[in-house]
Every structure is written in C-alpha cells, then in structure tokens.
C-alpha cells in the first residue's frame, strides 16, 4: 500500500513581475490643422525643436500658432525676438490671423526683445537673460526668433566653441525647466550638415516653397522628431486668414475604420441602367463613367445623386467645370430638384477651381464635406477638370492622391461616381488615360455611334467588380426627363464600339452569354 502523501504541495503561482512603466510623453497641439496628424499626435512636451526655412515660408506664423494654442497665464509662452522681425511688427501682422488672441498678450504670451544683447556679441549675456526670464515666468513654451541671427552674430565674433557652449547650455536649461522650445531660423538645406544645432534638436520642421512653372506651393517636412511616428515626406501647407493649414500626404486617413462591404446595391436612378448593372452598383464601390463631351456623363451623375437623396442619403458633388448654379439648373431641366436638399443640408455642391490648388487640400475639402454631412454618395465631375484645376506641380501626384482618397472613402462606405472625358476615336475604344483598375470597381462607357446618318449615343458596362452585368450595348437619349436608356440593344449592327457600326444581314455568332431578348424568352417559357 502506498503511503498516502498528505503533504499539500503548494500551488505554483506565476510570479508576476511588474514592468517599470515607460515614460508617457504628452503631446502638445500645434494649433495648425492637419499638422498634429503629420507629427504623429503633436509636439512632444519638453522637446527642443527647430523650425527652419527660407524667408516667406511661414516660420513665424507657425511659431505663433503653437504659442497661442498652448500658452496660459499659469504656463505662459515666452517669445524672444532677436534682430529679425521686430515684435511690434510681428504683433501688427500676426493679429490679422484668426488664431491670434490679444487677450493672451502680456500674461500668457510675452514678447521679449534680445536684440541689444545679441548686438553686443555676448552670448553669455543672452543666455543669462533667457535664464532670468524663464526662471521668473516658468513658461511652458519658449520661442527664439530668429535663432539664426544669434548664431550669425556668434560666428561673426569668431568663437565656435562659445556658440556650441551656448547651444548646449540653452538646451540643458530649457529642458530642465520643462519648457518646450522652438528655435526659429532661416537655414538652407546645405547648412544641416555638421551643424551641432541640428544634432542636438529633438525635432526639425522644415518649411519650403516649391516653384513649378508659374505656381508656388509651400511645403512642410518633419525631418526629425524623436520618439514619434511622424508621417514622412513633403506635405502641402497653405497660409490663409486662419494661419497655417497642413495637408498630410496621407490625408489623415491612415488607420481609419474600414466599412464592412456588404452586398447592398444602390440604384443609379435609371431603371434600365440598374438592370444592366445587375440591380445597381454595390454600396462603397467606385464607379467611373467614361465618355466624350456631350454624351451625358454629368446627367447620369445627377440621376445617381438624385436617387440617393430620394433614399434619404446625403450627397456631395465636386464640380470643376460647371458652376453650382448651372449644375442645379440643369438638374431642374430634367425634373430633378436639387435646390431643396441643398437648403436642408443633405446636398453640398463644391465648386473647386481656384488657381494653384494643391491636390491634398482639394481632397481635404472633399473629405471635410463628406464628413460634415455624412455623405453616402459622392460625385467627382470630372477627373479631367479636377486635374486641370491643380497647380502644375501637383499633377504628377494627382493619381496617387486620388487613389488614396477613393480608397479611403469607399473603405468608409461612401459610393463614388467619377466622370472622365475621353476622346472617341473611330478605330478603338479607350476608357480613360487614368489607371482604371486602381481607381474603380465599375466602369460604364458612353460613346457616339453613327447610325443611319445620325450621331447616336450608346452605353455599355465594361466592368463590374464582383458581379455579373449586362454585356449589351444599349442606345440612350437625353430628354427633358434626363438620361433615358432605350433599346433593348442594337441588334442590327456590328462593331458599335468602334463608333462606325455596320448593318448585319447574316446570322450572328452565338454570344457567350444569353442576350437580353433571348433571356426574356427563356424566362417567359419557364413561367409558362
């Protein structure tokens, strides 16, 4: 007999080792729309940053926006001005921007002029003055504008060691005093190399102006930002009455929730066309309507929008060629009332044709509108007009940005209809010069054909991702009811797609799929 072992074995418990918590770096808002996303959440607190650029890029405005976004009476911002733009002129110009809050001046935002000390070439005195002011005010934000002039004076005085010692002392002091610092300066890209300032800095925001033919566009690049996942590359910035606005290359769409793609079909507002599409297009699809001028692409898109509005969906129409008034009037001539949904906020018509438009800011405008009214349908009329409205320098980026925007919007469940003008040739059938498969799930082609001495119009479905569709070529007309598909199809002609069809007098080859007439016959027999 085995001796019973009464010894209770202690239960082995997993020893939990508490990990020391890593430091959480608070991120300060920049007050610049779009910039926090680019920076990976904002400016790291207590970081030592450089805002560098050539003149006229918006350095000082950027610094002011950051200052006004963060300064409070308890944690003020100290703005040291040095030989650059005098504070009085800064105040004169910066108060024109909407972010400028004069009630913050004095208590929350304090300007201190260091010119006299810098002119004496005494870096120690400059540092001592900064230390004195910072110690007294206990600021959250410190700006030195322009730091470049401080350095220039120091270099002129001939002591590089003094300069390095000054930078080191300044960095250590301001970080120890828990101040987030911005040194604003005019630098050229060649000056980055071998400059200790850029090595010490935690963050380096580079602003530039890019010239392309007659257009000038401001760009922002986060060249360096310690400890944060900033968005690489050049981002467009624009200076308006609201100050700087940044447009991320990713349009701030990275990480957005993807709408689960269902199989709900949306009506195009033209029953015969819905039938050709197998019941309508899928929600969240991107549909391209390609055809030459005058074939009714805009009319078709208006039907699409009107149908969505009838179903209670909100919609955005981005137009680049026609003006909103004309667009609404033309819809009215088809018996479609777009004025009412415009008034109730269910429909927004964006007319986007300013000069030097950047692709990212245009797309941002569309995205904002979509978000603002919760649009489920979007029309871009047309891609050619969109591209033409852009500054020449942006046209190269057009497809890439368009792809990103369409991908993000359809991913969010918005159904997009884009029109594109293509030139009809009478020897071939082109869809568009854009990279179709990347931009669209579905393609509808409209074209002219010459029949019996008339220039008539036909419509057919080229592609429908994930669904069967009619292969018929249907004739349509544009009447006072809009676009009306007639047909069922032109059976007496061949080579309709070339635009110069020929009458058929001999029996045709069997088509790979049943044509509509035959199919109807089969169904009738089945019913009988």
């Amino acid at each position, binding site marked *: 007999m085995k001796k019973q072992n009464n010894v209770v074995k202690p239960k082995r418990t997993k020893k939990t080792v508490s990990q020391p918590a890593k430091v959480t770096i608070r991120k300060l808002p920049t007050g610049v729309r779009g910039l926090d996303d680019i920076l990976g959440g904002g400016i790291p607190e207590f970081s030592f940053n450089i805002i560098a650029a050539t003149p006229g890029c918006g350095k000082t405005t950027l610094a002011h926006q950051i200052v006004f976004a963060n300064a409070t009476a308890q944690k003020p911002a100290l703005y040291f001005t040095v030989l650059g733009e*005098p*504070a009085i002129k800064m105040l004169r110009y910066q108060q024109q921007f909407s972010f400028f809050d004069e009630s913050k001046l004095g208590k929350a935002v304090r300007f*201190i002029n260091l*010119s*006299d000390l810098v002119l004496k070439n005494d870096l120690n005195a400059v540092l001592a003055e900064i230390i004195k002011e910072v110690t007294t005010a206990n600021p959250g934000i410190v700006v030195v504008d322009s730091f470049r002039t401080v350095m220039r004076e120091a270099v002129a005085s001939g002591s590089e060691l003094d300069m390095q010692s000054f930078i080191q002392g300044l960095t250590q002091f301001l970080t120890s005093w828990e101040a987030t610092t911005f040194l604003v300066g005019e630098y050229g890209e060649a000056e980055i190399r071998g400059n200790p300032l850029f090595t010490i800095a935690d963050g380096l925001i580079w602003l530039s102006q890019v010239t392309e033919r007659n257009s000038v566009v401001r760009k922002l690049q986060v060249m360096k930002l310690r400890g944060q996942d900033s968005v690489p590359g050049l981002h467009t910035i624009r200076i308006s009455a609201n100050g700087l606005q940044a447009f991320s290359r990713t349009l701030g769409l990275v990480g957005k929730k993807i709408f689960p793609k269902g199989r709900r079909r949306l009506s195009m507002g033209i029953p015969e066309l819905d039938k050709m599409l197998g019941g309508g297009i899928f929600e969240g699809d991107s549909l391209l309507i390609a055809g030459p001028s005058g074939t009714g692409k805009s009319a078709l898109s208006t039907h699409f929008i009107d149908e969505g509005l009838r179903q209670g969906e909100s919609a955005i129409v981005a137009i680049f060629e026609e003006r909103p008034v004309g667009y609404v009037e033309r819809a009215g001539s088809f018996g479609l009332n777009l004025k009412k949904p415009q008034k109730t906020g269910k429909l927004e018509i964006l007319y986007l044709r300013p000069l030097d438009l950047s692709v990212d800011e245009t797309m941002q405008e569309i995205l904002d509108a979509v978000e603002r009214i919760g649009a489920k349908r979007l029309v871009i009329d047309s891609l050619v007009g969109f591209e033409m409205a852009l500054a020449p320098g942006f046209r190269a980026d057009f497809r890439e940005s368009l792809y990103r925007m369409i991908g993000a919007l359809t991913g969010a469940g918005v159904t997009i209809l884009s029109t594109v003008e293509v030139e009809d040739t009478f020897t071939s059938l082109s869809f568009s010069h854009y990279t179709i498969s990347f931009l669209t799930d579905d393609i509808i082609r409209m074209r002219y054909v010459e029949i019996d001495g008339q220039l008539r119009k036909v419509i057919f479905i080229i592609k429908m991702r994930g669904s069967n569709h009619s292969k018929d070529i249907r004739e349509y007309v544009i009447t006072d009811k809009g676009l009306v598909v007639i047909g069922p199809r032109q059976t007496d002609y061949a080579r309709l797609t070339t635009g110069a069809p020929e009458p058929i007098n001999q029996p045709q080859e069997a088509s790979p799929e049943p044509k509509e007439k035959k199919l109807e016959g089969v169904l009738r027999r089945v019913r009988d």
Partner: protein
Amino acid sequence: MNRVTPKMRELAERLIAYETKGRQSPLLKTPVSFPVSEKLRPRLTTLMGKFGFHALLSRALALAGKEVPWLRAFQVNAEGSLESLDKLEGSVHPDEIFEGRVVLIAQLLGLLEAFVGEKLTLNLLREEWPSLAPPPEEIK
C-alpha cells in the same frame, strides 16, 4: 496729419493726470519730467528692444514738437529717456507743461495704435495702469 484719436488724447490726459497728481509745484522748479513715458519704457523696451523704443519715442517727440514748441528742446537719450537740451525753468507755464505731456503721450499711443491696433495698445496700457485703460468689452 494728426493721427491721434480723441480717445487716445483723452486716455493720455488721464494717464498724465494720474501720474503727476500732486507732484508738480505750480511753478516749475525741477526739470520737466515725463512719468508716463518713463513708466512705459521698460515694458516697451522688453517688447521692442532699446533701439526700437528709442525710435518710437523719437518719432512721437518729433510729431508732438510740431504742436508744442517747447518740446523741441528735448531729445531721447540712449536709454530711452527724455532729456532737455535747454533750461526751461520758469519759461513754461504748468498748463503748457501738462498740455505738452499729453500731446507727447497721445502721439506715442497714436503710433502704437497705428502699428498694433487699438486693442493691443490698450492691453499694453492696462498691464501698467489696470484701472485707467478701458476694459476690452468697452473697446469697439
């Protein structure tokens, strides 16, 4: 062209009256002082630098000197203070001194107003004389 608005003129009068209250004998025995500009000097020097304040006060003095001849006897020294080139003792009536001070300060405030606007000018003054400058809600 006189850019001084009645509001700035009135404000200058109040500031001068406040700063000189009971400090001046009826007849001038001591050199003419400019307490308002002296009080503004550190604040504006911090904002604009010594040179910037010097330039602004010199301009105000030049403009004021056109209206008040005895002010032409003054200049702005390197520190940003006003100093007399001539001895004025007894030659200027206290009423004229008051008027000269008001005109000078009104010109200085007028310049500030032209550069940074009325709101910011009054903000600056409010920091030094909280009870004298009108509160923001009164500024139209």
